[in-house]
C-alpha cells in the first residue's frame, strides 16, 4: 500500500512536471533598469499563465557565462529558452546549440546578428526601432498642423551619438516623415549631435537660438536632449506654447516636463510588453506552432492626452 501511494504520488509529480512548461531565461544583466522592467514583465506575465514556470538566470554581461547557461537549460530539458543577448554578435553559437538539441529559442530586445539565418523554431521579439522616431515625428507634424503652421514650419534636430544605431535610425525617421506629402511643409534648419546629453543639448540649442533664426519645432533623438533644448528655450524667454518639442523614451523627467506643458510628444518603448511577448512566442514555438521570425511589440505614443496612463 505504502509503495502504491508512493508510486502514485511520483506518477502525479512526474505528470505535473510533464504538463508544466519550463522556460529557461537568460538576461544580459539584472541590474540594468530597462532590462529589469522587461524581466518583471516576463515574471508578471508567467504568473498569469497556469503551468508555466520560468527559470531566470543573470548572465552578468558575460558572453561565455550566457552560453553556459543556455547549454545548462538544454541539458535540464527545458521546453523553450529565451535569451536577452549579452553580445548580439555571439548569438550564432546559441542558435546552433538550441537547434541541434531541438529546443525552441527566442531572442528578446536585442537583435541577434544571425537574424536572417535563424534556424526553424527560433524567433526575435522586440520593438521595431523604426517606429519610435516615426511615431514622434508624425505626431509633431500633426501638432504643427493643428497650430495652423501647415503653410511652413521650421525645425531643428538634436541627434544622439553618430556611431549609435538608434541615433542614426531616429534621425532618418524624422527626415523621412518631413519628406512625406502630408508633412513636407516642415523644413529642417539644421541637425547636430548633442551626444544624448542634456547639457550638450542645452548649449547647442542656445547656440541655435543665438543665430536668431525663427523655428517652430525641435526633435530630440531622446528625451534628455529634448529636455535640454526646453531648458535653453525657456532661459531665452521662448514660450513653450509656440514650439513643438518631441523626444523618445518617455523617461520620468520627460513625463514631468510634459505634465508641466513643456514637452509635447515622446514615445514609450514597451519593455514589459516585450518580456510578455517573448513568453507567448516561446510557448507557441514549444507547441510546434509557426510564428513570424520577427515579432514586433509596438511602441506607444505619449502625449499630454495619454500622459496619465504612463505616470506611476
Amino acid at each position: 500500500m505504502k509503495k502504491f501511494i508512493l508510486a502514485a504520488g511520483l506518477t502525479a509529480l512526474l505528470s505535473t512536471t510533464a504538463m508544466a512548461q519550463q522556460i529557461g531565461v537568460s538576461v544580459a544583466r539584472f541590474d540594468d533598469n530597462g532590462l529589469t522592467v522587461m524581466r518583471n514583465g516576463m515574471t508578471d506575465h508567467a504568473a498569469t499563465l497556469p503551468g508555466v514556470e520560468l527559470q531566470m538566470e543573470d548572465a552578468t554581461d558575460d558572453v561565455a557565462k550566457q552560453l553556459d547557461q543556455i547549454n545548462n537549460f538544454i541539458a535540464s530539458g527545458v521546453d523553450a529558452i529565451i535569451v536577452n543577448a549579452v553580445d548580439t554578435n555571439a548569438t550564432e553559437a546559441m542558435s546552433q546549440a538550441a537547434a541541434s538539441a531541438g529546443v525552441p529559442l527566442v531572442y528578446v530586445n536585442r537583435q541577434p546578428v544571425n537574424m536572417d539565418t535563424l534556424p526553424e523554431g527560433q524567433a526575435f521579439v522586440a520593438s521595431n526601432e523604426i517606429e519610435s522616431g516615426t511615431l514622434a515625428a508624425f505626431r509633431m507634424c500633426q501638432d504643427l498642423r493643428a497650430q495652423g503652421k501647415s503653410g511652413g514650419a521650421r525645425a531643428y534636430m538634436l541627434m544622439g551619438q553618430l556611431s549609435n544605431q538608434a541615433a542614426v535610425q531616429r534621425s532618418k525617421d524624422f527626415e523621412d516623415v518631413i519628406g512625406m506629402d502630408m508633412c513636407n511643409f516642415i523644413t529642417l534648419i539644421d541637425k547636430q549631435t548633442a551626444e544624448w546629453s542634456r547639457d550638450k543639448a542645452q548649449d547647442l540649442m542656445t547656440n541655435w537660438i543665438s543665430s536668431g533664426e525663427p523655428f517652430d519645432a525641435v526633435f530630440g533623438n531622446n528625451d534628455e536632449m529634448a529636455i535640454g533644448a526646453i531648458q535653453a528655450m525657456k532661459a531665452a524667454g521662448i514660450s513653450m506654447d509656440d514650439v513643438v518639442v518631441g523626444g523618445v523614451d518617455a523617461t520620468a523627467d520627460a513625463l514631468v516636463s510634459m505634465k508641466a506643458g513643456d514637452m509635447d510628444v515622446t514615445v514609450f518603448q514597451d519593455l514589459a510588453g516585450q518580456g510578455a511577448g517573448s513568453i507567448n512566442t516561446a510557448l507557441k514555438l514549444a507547441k510546434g506552432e509557426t510564428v513570424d521570425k520577427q515579432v514586433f511589440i509596438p511602441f506607444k505614443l505619449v502625449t499630454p492626452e495619454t500622459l496619465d496612463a504612463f505616470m506611476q
Partner: protein
Amino acid sequence: MSDTSHGTGGLSYDKTKRQWPNELNVFGALILIIVIFEILGAIFMGQSLLFDSKDRFDSIFNEQRLRIIIIQVAIVGIIALGVTQVIITAGIDLSSGSVLGATAMIAMSFAQISIVNGDPNPKAIFGPAFLDLPVIVPILVGLGCGIIAGIVNGMLVAYSRIPPFIATLGMMLFARGIAQWWSSGKPVSFPTESYAMIGRGMMPVIIFLSLAVLFHLIMNYTVYGKHTYAIGSNEAAARMSGINVPRHLVLVYAIAGMLAGLSAVILTSKNLTAQSGMGLSYELDAIAMAVIGGVSLFGGRGSIIGTVIGAVIIGVITSGFTFLRLGAYYQEMVLGGIIVGAVALDQWQQKRVASKA
C-alpha cells in the same frame, strides 16, 4: 616678487629672449580664429558670428552668442583651472570627468525636492528626511567628494610614487564605477529651487571667471604658486630648496578635485539632473583647454590666463561650427586638427625664441 617672474617658476626671464608673454600668442590665435569665422560667416551665411548682423540687440554685438560661447565652456573651464595647476607640477589629472560624474550623483541626492508639480518626487534617492535640505548641504557634499578624490590622487602620486597618469587613470575608473553604482545607473533629478539657482543663466560664467581671477592671483603672488611652478620646473631642485614636495602635491591635487566637485554641483544645477554618464571625457576637454592655452605637459610652464583664453577658443570654435552649420561628422575632425595645430605652433614658437637666445 617682481612683475617679470610669472610663468617661469619664480625666475625672472631675460627680456631679450622673449618679446612678449606667451599668453599674447594664445590671444592672437583667438583673434585669428574669430576673424576666420567672421570671414566664412560673411561668405557662406551672410551673417556675423559675434556682431549683431540682424539688428536683434541694442548693442553692436550678438549678445546671446557672446554669452553661450562662455557658458558652454565655463563648467569644463572650472575643471581646467585645477588641471592647469596639476599640469604645471608636471602631473596630469585624468580623473576629473569621472569625479564630476560621481560627485554629481552624490551631491544631487542631497539636493532633491519633495514635491514635483504636486506629485511626490519620482526620483527620490533617500527617505523624506533627506529631501528639501538647505542648499549648503549638497554644496558641501559636492566639494567634499571632490576634495576626497583629489587627496587620494595626490597621496598616490606624492607618497606611493605611482605616475600621475596611472594614479588618476585608476581614480577615473573607480569614480565612474561609483557614479554608476550610486543609484544603479538611474538618473537623480528634481532639485530644490535654491539649488537650481547655482547654475542658472550666467552663474557658471561668473563662478568660472571669479575663480580664474582668484587662482591667477594665487599662482602669481603666493608661496603656493611659486612652489607649484618650482616643482614642475625641477622637482629635485624644489625638494632641495626646502619645499615639502609631497605635501604640496597633495594640496594641488586636492584643489583640482575640489574644482571638479564644484563643477559637478554647477552642472547638475544647470541641468536639473544628475546622470552617471555626466562629465564623460571632460578631463580631456579640460586638458585641451590648458594645452591650447600654452600650458606645457612637461611642467613648469603655463598660466591660468592662458587656460582661460584656451577655454574661450574652444567656446568660439564650438559656437562657430554651429553658426556655420558645419556637419556634425566634420566638427570633431576639425577640432582635432586645431588642437594639434595649436600645440605644434606653440612648440615652433618656443624653439624659435630659444634659438634666438
